[in-house]
């Protein structure tokens, strides 16, 4: 194993390896001599026992949200990331991107040692000493005012550190680059309330959520935390639930969870908000703040009737929304996709204003007394590019930012960069920006380094190294300090600390003083490390309308061009702005809306597509003034006829084997010019052309409609609360009359009693699960969690297009309505093995590879499986997955774990061989682990002790797991719920999974 891990630090590797468990052992079959090697530690690391997982608290840095992590470490290798339950940001949950953090750590395409540009333009590996010598020389050569340092959005100690470091070199040239800097929203709070801060939305206590294109369940701000809050407020509980209305030209993943989706003309969301404000003031629906009087004149321009025509939303709808909005605790959201068009600052302002008018500001919309450090606006980046072009930048240092990819090519950032004589990247990967640099000094992975972050004012969350570095990388903080020392002079004196960790601890000592914590620092520090950070209360401040108020002409909407179509470019829920593109898990994660993997696509309304004679998979050319891309078409009824939508994140020209040359980068359609509020406009006019080419979309979806089979069931709130719950059975009627069914059941019981002997005597638990569809948002975090926990292979686009994906857990997405007047609706249902009591897959297996365990699991014994695949044919849920190829043989093109990616394999789970069937096991390894623990401690398992991977990570808390034989367990109670139903229950498969119907808070027309 070590032999073929070129560039990997062998010694460290051996040290960390310890004794490998089964999963990894399966991969070490290739070690030179046949004999298995057992490699002990030289010095035993404290608190690590081979075979027992150690957990460390840390912070996820996959996006600026800054979720708390618990890292599961086995034999020195992190094998699973889970949310930190005590963490205020994410409360123990993670999204798909967070789960995939491991694939950043173990990514085979990481920069394995310092690289320097050779004379022939290629990179050559160099030693760290030389690397540091070169950078020191480089930065000493340029005067401070010509030095520019671009980092990602760093809210924390590193942020200050970089400033200090630059200062030490007499520079202030700091750019804090984040592709989505929420410029419009900031601009709006400045113009409306005169404060430069982002509002905090309190989703948990709002009973009525009105989102103006804010993708708050996908990528915007803190999706995990918001999903949790949303789940609590909108999920159905004892006869009540909140209502969620989403206003956006396209039904995004977030919109799929909405009770009502309103598709206005693109860019006119602001008008609707203003009109609603107008209605509220006009009819005095709410006790409006006194200073609203100043707005009357402005609001007059926004009578619903006049607005209706421009927004394409009927006046009565607007009136209704306004009434509903003030009828209960509500919040209107601005930001995200809906606030990225040229006039988005107007939209944001309008929404804030409406919140103000409705009296939400100070309640569900709050402004913290301290505003965290703001990332640079896109305008700043444009400024930087300009300076570079002028040649007034002597040295450019880039850390965890990829401007070359993440800015519109129209900006021509690359050309600008080439004017800079000395360019250094601290990137962990050879991304587009690093590829342009002269020197690459790879930073540690977030899981290998000391750091902290303050994603939300008051939340100080820590990162600690959870393993020995995989490669010859160094933490940038330390590198910079060494540089400062070597540079000597003022720099050396101003940065006295020798390691970044010291600098960090110093910062935390200050924090401790600030918190007034009397204990010795060591105690405080240790506790912080264990908790994952330190939290303090940050108050909110009252805000009034600014005087003078910003221009309200801003509310003028972005007008979609009459000819051609309006393009909506949105961040991909899986790949975000593209930084996830080198993680196979995320590439293979079906998009929550389109279910497409491994590629870019353009969403077109079927009717529009018909006009252009475009079928699914046809390659179309999208062209704007800025440029053009060729992408396959996906026909999506959930988008306006005059719009098309393309996700961001693909079309990388560098960034490793999984990202390179895949799909297209939609940014090339967007103008490089900054908008009035200094952002990138992601709405633009495009023309569509059918190229005549065609490709088979690599999507996991068979058919988008349920054919009336009641797989994803929903029920209207009234019907549930007042109507007869049991009448709500959707799909067709049961195939046999009641009295026959009773007879059948009796007979079934008889059969069951017959089976209850020996091991099956029934004192065992029966493991079962319940999934609450009124909470599930389809975010697919569970899917990636399942990949991570169960060593599921990723198979690549070609195999996915042939339906051969291995994901044990899939989120089925079904469309409802959308034609002849029925409002369009999308439903999601997580589909995994149902562990049926009458499992059809079991009796057909000739060799008992599929059988029923005494504790009610539908077991699949991989090593007994011969591969007849009869079980899969006979599984009505189609949740069994077959190993068509050998995914662990590096000789094969389908090899799924190129070193060191195989280090993330869970040692407790067998890596399945070629030619065997596999499927969801209810995380049997976790069950057995807890059972062993309980037996050794001589006690009974408690309810909720066993937590499956999907349940653990679910941001909306939609999944419960436990013992069905215990009448008081959560899962039994859920199974008895009036909303409960079994998918395809009329087949008498007796599934162990109960689905709780989605509840739609709508007034049935």
């Amino acid at each position, binding site marked *: 194993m070590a032999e073929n891990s070129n560039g990997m630090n062998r010694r460290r590797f051996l040290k960390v390896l310890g004794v490998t468990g089964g999963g990894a052992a399966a991969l070490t079959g290739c070690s030179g001599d046949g004999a298995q090697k057992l490699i002990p530690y030289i010095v035993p690391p404290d608190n690590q026992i081979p075979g027992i997982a150690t957990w460390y608290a840390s912070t996820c840095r996959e996006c600026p949200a800054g979720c708390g992590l618990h890292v599961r470490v086995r034999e020195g290798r992190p094998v699973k990331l889970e949310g930190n339950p005590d963490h205020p940001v994410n409360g123990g949950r993670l999204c798909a991107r967070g789960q995939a953090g491991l694939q950043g750590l173990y990514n085979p395409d990481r920069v394995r040692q310092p690289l320097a540009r050779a004379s022939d333009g290629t990179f050559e590996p160099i030693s760290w000493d030389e690397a540091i010598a070169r950078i020191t020389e480089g930065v000493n050569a340029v005067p401070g005012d010509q030095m520019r340092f671009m980092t990602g959005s760093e809210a924390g100690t590193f942020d200050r550190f970089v400033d200090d470091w630059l200062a030490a070199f007499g520079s202030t040239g700091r750019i804090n680059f984040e592709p989505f800097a929420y410029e419009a929203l900031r601009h709006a709070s400045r113009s409306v309330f005169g404060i430069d801060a982002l509002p905090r939305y309190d989703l948990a206590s709002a009973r009525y959520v009105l989102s103006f294109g804010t993708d708050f369940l996908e990528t915007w701000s803190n999706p995990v935390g918001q999903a949790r809050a949303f789940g609590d407020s909108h999920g159905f509980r004892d006869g009540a639930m909140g209502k969620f209305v989403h206003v956006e030209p396209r039904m995004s993943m977030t919109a799929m969870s909405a009770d009502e989706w309103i598709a206005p003309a693109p860019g006119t969301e602001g008008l609707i908000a203003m009109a609603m404000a107008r209605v509220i003031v006009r009819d005095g629906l709410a006790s409006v703040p006194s200073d609203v009087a100043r707005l009357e004149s402005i609001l007059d321009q926004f009578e619903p009737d006049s607005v209706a025509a421009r927004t394409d939303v009927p006046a009565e709808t607007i009136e209704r929304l306004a009434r509903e909005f003030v009828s209960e605790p509500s919040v209107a959201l601005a930001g995200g996709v809906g606030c990225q068009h040229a006039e988005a600052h107007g939209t944001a302002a309008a929404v804030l204003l409406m919140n103000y008018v409705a009296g939400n500001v100070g309640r569900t919309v709050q402004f913290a007394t301290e505003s965290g450090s703001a990332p640079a606006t896109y305008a700043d980046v444009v400024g930087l590019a300009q300076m570079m072009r002028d040649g007034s930048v002597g040295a450019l240092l880039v850390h965890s930012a990829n401007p070359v990819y993440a800015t519109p090519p129209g900006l021509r950032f690359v050309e600008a960069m080439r004017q800079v004589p000395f360019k250094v990247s601290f990137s962990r990967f050879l991304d587009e920006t690093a590829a342009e640099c002269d020197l690459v000094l790879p930073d540690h992975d977030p899981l290998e380094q000391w750091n902290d972050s303050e994603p939300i004012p008051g939340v100080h969350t820590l990162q600690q190294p959870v393993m020995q570095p995989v490669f010859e990388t160094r933490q940038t903080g330390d590198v910079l300090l060494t540089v400062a020392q070597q540079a000597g002079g003022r720099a050396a004196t101003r940065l006295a600390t020798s390691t970044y960790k010291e600098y960090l601890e110093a910062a935390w000592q200050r924090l401790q003083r600030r918190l007034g914590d009397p204990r010795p620092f060591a105690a405080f520090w240790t506790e912080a490390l264990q908790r994952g950070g330190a939290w303090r209360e940050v108050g909110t401040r009252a805000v009034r309308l600014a005087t003078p108020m910003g221009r309200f002409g801003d509310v003028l909407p972005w007008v979609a061009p009459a000819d051609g179509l309006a393009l909506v470019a949105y961040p991909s829920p899986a790949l975000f702005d593209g930084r996830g593109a080198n993680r196979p898990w995320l590439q293979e994660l079906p998009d929550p809306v389109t279910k497409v993997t491994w590629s870019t696509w353009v969403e077109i309304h079927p009717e529009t597509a018909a006009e252009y004679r475009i079928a699914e998979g046809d390659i179309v050319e999208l062209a704007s003034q800025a440029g053009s891309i060729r992408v396959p078409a996906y026909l999506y009824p959930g988008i306006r006829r005059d719009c098309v939508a393309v996700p961001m994140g693909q079309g990388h020209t560098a960034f490793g084997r999984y990202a390179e040359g895949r799909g297209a980068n939609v940014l090339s359609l967007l103008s490089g010019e900054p908008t009035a509020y200094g952002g990138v406009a992601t709405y633009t006019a495009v023309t569509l052309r059918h190229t005549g080419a065609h490709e088979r979309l690599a999507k996991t979806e068979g058919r988008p409609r349920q054919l009336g089979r009641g797989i994803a069931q929903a029920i209207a709130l009234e019907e549930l609360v007042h109507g007869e719950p049991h009448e709500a059975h959707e799909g067709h009627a049961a195939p046999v009359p009641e009295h026959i069914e009773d007879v059948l059941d009796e007979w*079934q019981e008889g*059969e*069951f009693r*017959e*089976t209850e*002997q*020996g*091991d*099956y005597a029934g004192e065992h638990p029966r493991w079962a699960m319940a999934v609450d569809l009124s909470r599930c948002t389809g975010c697919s975090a569970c899917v990636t969690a399942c990949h991570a926990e169960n060593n599921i292979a990723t198979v690549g686009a070609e195999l996915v297009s042939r339906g051969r994906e291995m994901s044990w857990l899939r989120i089925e997405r079904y469309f409802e309505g959308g034609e002849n007047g029925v409002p369009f609706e999308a439903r999601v249902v997580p589909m995994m093995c149902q562990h049926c*009591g*009458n*499992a*059809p*897959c*079991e*009796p057909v*297996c000739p060799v*008992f590879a*599929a*059988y*029923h365990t005494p504790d009610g699991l539908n077991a699949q014994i991989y090593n007994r499986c011969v591969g007849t695949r009869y079980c899969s044919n006979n599984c009505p849920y189609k949740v069994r997955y077959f190993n068509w190829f050998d995914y662990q043989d590096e000789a094969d093109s389908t090899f799924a774990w190129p070193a060191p990616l195989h280090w993330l394999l869970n040692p407790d789970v067998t890596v399945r061989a070629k030619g065997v069937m596999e499927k969801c096991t209810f995380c049997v390894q976790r069950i057995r682990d807890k059972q062993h623990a309980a037996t050794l401690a001589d006690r009974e398992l408690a309810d909720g002790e066993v937590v499956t991977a999907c349940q653990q990570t679910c941001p909306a808390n939609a999944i419960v797991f436990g013992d069905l034989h215990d009448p008081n367990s959560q899962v039994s109670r859920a199974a008895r719920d009036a909303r409960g139903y079994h998918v395809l229950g009329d087949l008498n498969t*007796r599934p162990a999974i109960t689905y709780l119907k989605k509840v739609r808070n709508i007034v049935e027309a």
Partner: protein
Amino acid sequence: MSAGAGGILASYVHVDAAADAIRALKAKGYRDFTVYTPVPNVEIAQAVRHRVSPVRLWTLLGGLTGCAAGFALTLWMSYDWPLVVGGRPIGSVIPYVVIAFELTILFGAGATILGLLFHSWRTKQTGPYDGRFTDDHIGIFVPCPVERRPDVEELLQASGAEEVRVET
């Protein structure tokens, strides 16, 4: 029947002639003669008048054994390591009927063949034989001591044998 014992071998073209000869021989009290025919022939069979072949008993017993074995095998194996599949009883007889049936046929057929070989070989004749007997001639071989040959010969000739020769 002692090997190589001499006798008279007659060959016929006409089936009725052969039948007459057989009847005549029986009338004269000859029992252990052998009749060769290219095909099974009703007339000859009636003339010879054998008891029904015991092979059928082999078939019956084979079949019964197979059936028993089928149920024994399936049931015993099911309970030797009981595993529940699809909520069915451990030993569910209905599906096992198929196995039992197939084994019935298999053992039955096997036993029939064994019986066939066993009996045919037991009664295998080592007397003289002529290749034409599997083509288009009927043969009758009457083993008899020298002193009785003349009248046997005469009898066979009379019944219209195409050829009669003495085998020693």
